[in-house]
């Protein structure tokens, strides 16, 4: 029987295995050395690879992203561990104007093998500086791969692809998933970017669920299944590239689509999917594509307010029912 390990362990295994294979990989971040990472992302690796490859940094997000951009241009393969992904914002200029553009500006003569990882998402009263998601912004920018695994198997397989490629990759780990366990084979494997997973097959409506929403939508679908309603669930797994074909095929079958996303609606991934389905699958639609997003607000701290700003079992269920009633 296949062993079960946590999401974090699975991602760490991918990192450890690739670091063993490729001595040009190194990790930077605050507390990723001896401490093993605030979220245990590098536990045990310092002992194996020492300070040059597990590099504790001062609190200089712009500085180490710029530094790693230069490192990636000169033969090494940096992994930036932001801890909370929110801290990426101070390095945004480096990422957008430098990291994402170097391959293009050099006509492909430079590569940019850099992985930027960190925890995203609302929960646990982490409040507004420790709960952002940001992926729509990076999907908008040309030059980034945006990866968002939702289970241990995908976490390991997608991290491997990230570490073996030559492009800048954002690897986003939702806080609520870190301790989730799942089957992960012992053998080496990787998952290509741009392949969505059909998490559940169904016939009456398609729900694209992002990140932590996958599990909530799965629960809602079980409830509906008990009522005889059949929902298909798609987890895109990577947002750039986006596997729109799998979504279109599903909509061709079901005629109805809802996108459930914890983060903001305006210019979000849901709007992108919706407009692509409009453009390429209009005739398949029996109802307008709908979006269910978190509210468009900074994240409040109090549990009472925090719960009100994200989609939950009830609002998901209601949205699916509304979609079916259209």
């Amino acid at each position, binding site marked *: 029987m296949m062993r079960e390990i946590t999401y974090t362990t699975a991602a760490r295994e991918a990192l450890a295995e690739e670091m063993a294979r490729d001595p040009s990989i190194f990790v930077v971040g605050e507390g990723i050395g001896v401490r093993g990472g605030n979220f245990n992302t590098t536990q045990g690796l310092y002992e194996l690879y020492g300070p040059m490859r597990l590099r504790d940094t*001062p609190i200089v997000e712009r500085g180490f992203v710029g530094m790693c951009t230069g490192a990636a241009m000169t033969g090494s393969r940096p992994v930036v561990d932001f801890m909370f992904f929110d801290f990426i914002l101070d390095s945004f200029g480096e990422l957008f104007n430098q990291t994402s553009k170097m391959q293009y500006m050099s006509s492909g003569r430079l590569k940019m093998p850099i992985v930027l990882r960190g925890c995203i998402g609302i929960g*646990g009263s982490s409040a507004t500086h420790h709960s952002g998601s940001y992926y729509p912004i990076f999907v908008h920018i040309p030059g980034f791969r945006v990866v968002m695994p939702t289970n241990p198997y995908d976490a390991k397989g997608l991290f491997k692809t990230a570490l073996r490629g030559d492009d800048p990759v954002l690897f986003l780990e939702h806080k609520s998933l870190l301790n989730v366990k799942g089957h992960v084979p012992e053998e080496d494997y990787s998952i290509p970017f741009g392949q969505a997973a059909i998490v559940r097959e169904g016939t009456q409506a398609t729900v694209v669920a992002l990140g932590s929403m996958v599990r909530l939508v799965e629960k809602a679908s079980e409830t509906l299944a008990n009522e005889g309603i059949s929902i298909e669930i798609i987890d895109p797994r990577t947002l750039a590239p986006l596997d729109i074909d799998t979504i279109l095929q599903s909509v061709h079958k079901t005629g109805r689509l809802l996108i459930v996303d914890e983060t903001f609606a305006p210019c979000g991934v849901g709007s992108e999917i919706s407009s692509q389905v409009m453009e390429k699958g209009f005739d398949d639609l029996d109802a307008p594509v709908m979006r269910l997003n978190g*509210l468009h*607000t900074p994240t*409040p701290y*109090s549990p009472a307010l925090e719960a009100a700003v994200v989609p939950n079992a009830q609002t998901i269920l209601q949205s699916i029912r509304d979609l079916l009633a259209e």
Partner: protein
Amino acid sequence: MSEEIAKEQALTLWRQMLMIRRTEEQLAKSYAGGMIPGACHTYVGEEAVATGVCAHLRHEDAVFSTHRGHGHALAKGVPPREVIAELFGRVTGCSRGRGGSMHLFSPEVGMMGTSGIVGPCILQATGAGYSFKLLGKDNVGVAFFGDGAMNNGAFHEGLNLAAIWDLPVIFVCEDNMYATEVPFAYATKNQDVAARARTYGMPGYSLDGNDVLAVSQAASEAIQRARSGGGPSLLHCKTYRTRPHAEGMRDAGYRTPQEVESWKQRDPIVTLKAKLLAQNLAEEGDFEEIESDIKAMVDEAAEFAKNSPYPDPATATEHIFSV
């Protein structure tokens, strides 16, 4: 200064430090008891810094702080009940439950926010200084920040701007030797922070951050200079946090129990009391009275917080814009 005034001032400082200490201890207890849903970084051991600086501030002066900001909020005049209620996520908290530990706002008393992001407070305090200068007010902006912020670009850019424009800003570096678990000595080759100030062209003070009288003295001088158009200063306060980086975190592997113990010996509250007793500036009774006052205040505050309602979920999207 007459002995009476010296005594009164010293006891006021002692009271303020104790108020912070007891509030923090209450928060630690409440955290352990599951009353605090989010993070909680206490200021235990560092009370002399906020106390010594804020003793010279008015409500119209603007303080900007960090993730370790309870002490700054309390010293600036936010009542313990509002801080505790905020950490409990209640609508009676100073940020109405929106913020928690890392987002304490009370503009009414010049507490312009703690921050979950390291660095910005330095720039915002510089901006407050700009405002005050532009508007012809004699107020000051104050930034409290840790040694961890020292190497961040915000430090470099903020200090330079304040220096070249002679802005009324006080930069207070609370050097507690670690950024989480990363030693300042690892992150910075040359740890003479006050010397750095001088390379920006502003006075730098190197202070024992556990000596509230020393901090107060230097802050008084720097703040007065700033108010009267003399420009910014940097106070480098060497101090120590005796609790873990945040409540609930392990506190081992990066520092020795001996080191922690040695700093506990230099506790700012204990040492000031000892000094005042030794100098016959105060008696045990003075301290006992303050202790019991503060205890009553903090107990009441915790009770108030516990009994306060949560914010109404329907208000979750209010105040994103001004209208």
